[in-house]
């Protein structure tokens, strides 16, 4: 059967030969226009005067647009309707698009935008957490607070209390293919938009809204992205809208791709956070209470900051059963790029907060951090225990979403109904937001990893090395991941698919998910092939297309194969059942016993090739096309109260990282990493391991070399790969062992697999805490390392550990 096989990515032969097409590679009709934005040079204020005459006169320029020339405000926001395509005169960050140029070449457009003469009336910008708190610039009315138990009282009663603060930087996506879109005007004012996006439906909605068109007049197609990582969930809107506006106004094809520096300056990144904490614990290191203050810098517009900050709160417990846990979250508005979705979507930030607490507690008690982690784990899943009563059916939502038509309901930034969420039954271990933890496996998984990586012996060896080696110190850390799977905006947990079987037995398959390298198309094709019992080469995967499957959710929240795999399965089964019924009638057999396997359909005594079966069904006037639809069961969530079951299930994993650092310069290397990760019953182990290896390195990069630096004017100084350093080849661990946990999802997911896109990212936390461990070997004081742990921060933390200040 095609599922569970380690097959290569479906497009790999195209990738390696240079034949895989990305937006900028699509041949365009003659006369294509190329677009570029002119950008704000100040972080806050107004445009005093703007003179674009030299821009208009520049070679190759065909048109120039300012806000007043647009057909509408052309809002680009996925949430609050607060991002006009072009500035209305007010300026909110350095890099905000102010005007739009269309020219006959990409280079001509880029050159032309630099000829603008703009004078500004600047006002005092807000950059830091403290400044935003002082000015009370924030999204939502005040902090969001979720709570389990009474943390104030528990902290007072605790025998030991630590307090601390941790700063963690944001992260540039650095998808290798920058943002890009291409719009082609069609007859009747319709538009075809090719977009490098994780969310074609949102592109469709935003383009339709900008041009006052119904959604059926806009078709969006996405074959593949050259990387997404969350950066193409909402950040492609501006380019697609700009192209649509120009194509619509001129009738000519319009293409826009950001130069890398523009891409980094204009688009949002991962939210940086400051997390302050107080933790109370007993002498054995068992946590009694934790109080978190999470401060997220969201940038100038809301974008997806609310659900990102929510997810940071939702992961403040990570793997730990904490009797009293309070999380207060501040979503601060600052004059910077509007921070956006990035792999993990706030989860990594929340998780790093609690992992830091565990590390700090272990240091305070002089214990091995792994022992302290283990002492606080939730209890493992017990399959002898009866399942929970699902409770009464959901009640209608208390408030309905905004119906003005401005809101894209398929965006994670959309306001959701206030859901009904019944409390978990008494006696069941729950998270701080009331979700029962029914599938926990980290006790067993950690045991297995600790054994396979030789944790105990290596802990002793590291201690001995540090004893004997004055300049170079080693560090070791084993950290767990428990990551919630589902969109927290419950209604997004749905997907559609369209499957055709042709008369020759070949199958075309389409669904709402997008391919950004994760291998979604291949996994879903494996599901389709398995349902029909046919070889994979009979299944053709086609580009994501809003004309084929409507109202899709973003390919995000790791949900791609869970949702779309199920939707395709449903569609295939519908066709298969129709075929079985017809063939059973023809051959006087029982439809329930018709078997689709090994490229054949077995009906009673007969065995037909799938192609013959398809031909017979066509002649029998059986519909060989079907849609499929899936919605995730069990999820109910009230985000205002912070109660319910936002997640269908959790994905788990653990990583052990060993590092060595130089106490003279703060330079370091990752020596070895061992990972054991839970992908459920994997649909494709090779693709899943690829996600884990890549996710780990990206997560380690976030916390080590990837530093975003803004100057005091709010200008991003790290706006190209020359200054922003993602991991290079030699930065991967020298020894890198990755294995899959042998288990199946206890929930009924597609072939009992688990989502694997985001969870492994947070395995990179082990690299950061291994550095902290090595720094701890330099002195008595707790190093309190901030992220990213550049060599400079490491050296400064070493001094802190040595001097005790």
């Amino acid at each position, binding site marked *: 059967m095609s599922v569970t096989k380690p097959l290569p990515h479906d497009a*790999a032969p195209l990738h390696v030969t240079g034949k895989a097409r990305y937006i900028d590679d699509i041949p365009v009709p003659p006369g294509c226009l190329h677009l570029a934005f002119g950008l704000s040079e100040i972080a806050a204020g107004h445009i005093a005067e703007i003179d674009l005459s030299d821009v208009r006169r520049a070679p190759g320029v065909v048109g120039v647009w300012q806000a007043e020339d647009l057909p509408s405000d052309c809002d680009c926001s996925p949430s609050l309707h607060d991002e006009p395509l072009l500035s209305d005169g007010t300026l909110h960050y350095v890099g905000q698009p102010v005007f739009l140029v269309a020219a006959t070449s990409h280079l001509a457009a880029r050159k032309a935008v630099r000829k603008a003469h703009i004078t500004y009336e600047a006002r005092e910008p807000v950059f830091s957490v403290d400044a935003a708190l002082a000015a009370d610039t924030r999204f939502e009315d005040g902090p969001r607070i979720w709570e389990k138990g009474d943390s104030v009282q528990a902290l007072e009663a605790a025998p030991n209390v630590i307090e601390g603060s941790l700063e963690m930087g944001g992260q540039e996506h650095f998808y290798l293919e920058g943002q890009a879109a291409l719009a082609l005007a069609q007859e009747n004012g319709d538009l075809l938009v090719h977009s490098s996006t994780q969310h074609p439906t949102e592109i469709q909605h935003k383009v339709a809204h900008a041009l006052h068109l119904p959604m059926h007049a806009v078709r969006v197609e996405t074959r593949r*992205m050259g990387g997404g990582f969350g950066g193409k969930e909402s950040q492609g809107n501006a380019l697609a809208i700009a192209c649509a506006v120009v194509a619509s106004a001129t009738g000519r094809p319009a293409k826009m791709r950001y130069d890398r520096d523009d891409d980094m300056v204009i688009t949002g990144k991962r939210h940086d956070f400051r997390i302050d904490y107080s933790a109370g614990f007993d002498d054995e290191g068992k946590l009694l209470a934790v109080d978190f203050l999470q401060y997220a810098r969201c940038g100038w517009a809301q974008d997806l900051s609310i659900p990102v900050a929510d997810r940071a709160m939702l992961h403040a417990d990570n793997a730990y059963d904490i009797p009293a846990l309070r999380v207060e979250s501040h979503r601060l508005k600052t004059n910077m790029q509007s921070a956006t979705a990035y792999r993990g979507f706030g989860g990594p930030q929340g998780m790093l907060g609690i992992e830091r607490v565990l590390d700090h507690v272990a240091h305070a008690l002089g214990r091995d951090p792994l022992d302290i982690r283990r002492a606080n784990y939730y209890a493992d899943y017990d399959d002898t225990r009866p399942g929970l009563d699902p409770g009464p059916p959901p009640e209608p939502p208390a408030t309905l979403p905004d119906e003005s038509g401005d809101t894209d309901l398929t965006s994670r930034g959309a306001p959701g109904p206030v859901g009904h969420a019944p409390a978990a039954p008494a006696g069941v271990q729950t998270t701080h937001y009331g979700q029962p933890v029914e599938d926990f496996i980290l006790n067993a998984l950690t045991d297995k990893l600790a054994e396979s990586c030789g944790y105990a012996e290596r802990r002793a060896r590291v201690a001995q090395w540090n004893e004997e080696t004055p300049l170079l110190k080693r560090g070791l850390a084993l950290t767990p991941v428990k990551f919630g799977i589902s969109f927290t905006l419950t209604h997004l947990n749905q997907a559609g698919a369209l499957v055709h079987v042709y008369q020759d037995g070949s199958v075309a398959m389409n669904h709402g998910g997008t391919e950004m390298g994760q291998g979604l198309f291949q996994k879903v094709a494996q599901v389709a092939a398995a349902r029909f019992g046919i070889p994979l080469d009979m299944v053709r995967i086609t580009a994501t297309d809003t004309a084929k499957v409507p109202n899709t959710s973003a390919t995000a929240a790791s949900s791609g194969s869970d949702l779309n795999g199920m939707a395709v399965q449903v569609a295939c089964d519908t066709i298969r059942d129709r075929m079985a019924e017809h063939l059973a009638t023809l051959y006087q057999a029982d439809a329930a016993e018709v078997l689709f396997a090994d490229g054949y359909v077995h009906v009673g005594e007969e065995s037909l090739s799938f192609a013959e079966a398809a031909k017979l069904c066509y002649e029998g006037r059986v519909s060989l096309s079907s849609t499929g639809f899936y919605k995730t069961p069990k999820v109910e969530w009230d985000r205002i109260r912070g109660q319910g079951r936002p997640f269908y299930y959790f994905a788990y994993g653990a990583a052990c990282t060993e590092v060595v650092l130089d106490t003279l310069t703060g330079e370091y290397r990752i020596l070895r990493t061992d990972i054991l990760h839970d992908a459920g019953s994997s649909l494709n182990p090779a693709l899943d391991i690829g996600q884990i290896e890549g996710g780990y390195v990206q997560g380690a990069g976030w916390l080590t070399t990837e530093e975003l630096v803004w100057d005091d004017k709010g200008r991003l100084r790290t706006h190209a*790969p020359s200054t922003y350093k993602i991991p290079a080849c030699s930065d991967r661990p020298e020894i890198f062992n990755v294995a899959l946990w042998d288990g199946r999802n206890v929930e009924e997911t597609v072939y009992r697999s688990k989502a694997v896109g985001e969870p492994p990212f947070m395995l990179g936390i082990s690299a950061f805490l291994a550095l902290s461990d090595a720094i701890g070997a330099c002195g008595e004081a707790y190093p309190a390392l901030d992220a990213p742990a550049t060599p400079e921060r490491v050296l*400064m933390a070493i001094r802190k550990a040595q001097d005790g200040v």
Partner: protein
Amino acid sequence: MDISFLLNGERVELRGVSPTRTALDWLREERGLTGTKEGCNEGDCGACTVMVSDARGSRAVNACILFLPQLHGKALRTVEGISGPGGEMHPVQEAMVSHHGSQCGFCTPGFVVSMANAHLRGDTDYDDALSGNLCRCTGYAPIVRAAEAAAEAPVPGWMDEGALPEVAGTVSSRDMTAHVPDSADELAELAARHPNATLVAGATDVGLWVTKQLRDLPEVIFLNRCRDLQEIEVTDEAIRIGAGVTMDRVLDLMRVHFPSYAEMLRRYGSGQVRAAATIGGNIANGSPIGDNPPVLIALGARLHLRYRDTRREMAMEHFFLDYGKQDRYPGEFVETIEIPRQPDRLRVYKLSKRFDQDISAVCGAFNIQVEDGTVTGARIAFGGMAGIPKRAEAVEAALVGKPWNDEAVVAAWDGWEADFQPMSDMRASSEYRLLAARNMLTRYLLEDLGAATNVREVRP
């Protein structure tokens, strides 16, 4: 400008080429060869990697900062030409598929070209061969596995470039604003007649003036066909390196003479950058964070400059007058760098956020002579600590005559602040730069005493 080269084995004759047209734009926009990708447009990500071959052999370079005239007389091979004429896959392509080396696929063509180049040359140090190719999806592990799996496969016949296009003499554009001279003598004449012309050797920096600053270069002289500027001469007295010697060759040379310099150069740019960049360019450019000047200053190197047939020489440190200002007259060019032979007491410490392919926050070069336990001479120079590459004169003075132990480090303590008041920027703070520079002296001392000091030498 009229030029000629091989493209995937086929001869191409181009007429009226704009001298600053990049190979990448030309491939994608005019030839429809869209396999070569633009990732960063500044030579850092490697998505645009192509192979260039000439009599010296093949090398991987970044097409985004490669101007078309630099290809004159050479062979260019893109990812489309890594596959055989009938579409047969190259062994590295096969291995990338079977080892899951591609995810989103956008960086993949660049990796494939770098891997095919390494495969052709028999390079198996993949950390090094792939340091100029960034991948955001895979974490590199499966790519290295693929490279290892393909290493033993024979090189396919179609990778042989055969005879290169015969081109002779100096080429100039019709309006005489761009020239590709054939010798140093011709360069000397052209540079004198066009004193405002931009001299382009590898274009690893000038390329960015065009692709990022969007500057128009009114006059350009390309140096890469001046073979007589590309000579290396080693005598009993000195190592003489022509200004046009590319950094990959300097790296090979220094492995023999000054291994610590070589180890720094292994981290200098990437394979693609070292294959294009020249030592003369790195000096003449005058950047305060160029990595060669501090090392050459510490080695007591001398710089030879030429204007027409007039030559002069100076100590390397005297060339750098002030930030952005060098002691070079219009029409004058760097001809040779001369390093005196000496016992190897050199240690070079390059400090950056990422080990490979990162611009230095601080680059320190230490050359300290010790006799009978006493410091008898010291030449110490730094990049990244001032507006120019600069000697640590106060530190040197404090060291000489001191016993070679902790005492020397302590004696030099105040010298550091006298010598340097570094700036804070996105690479490092002033405080860190100064602290790390100080600690580098400690590292030099301890390394001399046999202590382990290099995290890159620690094995798991």
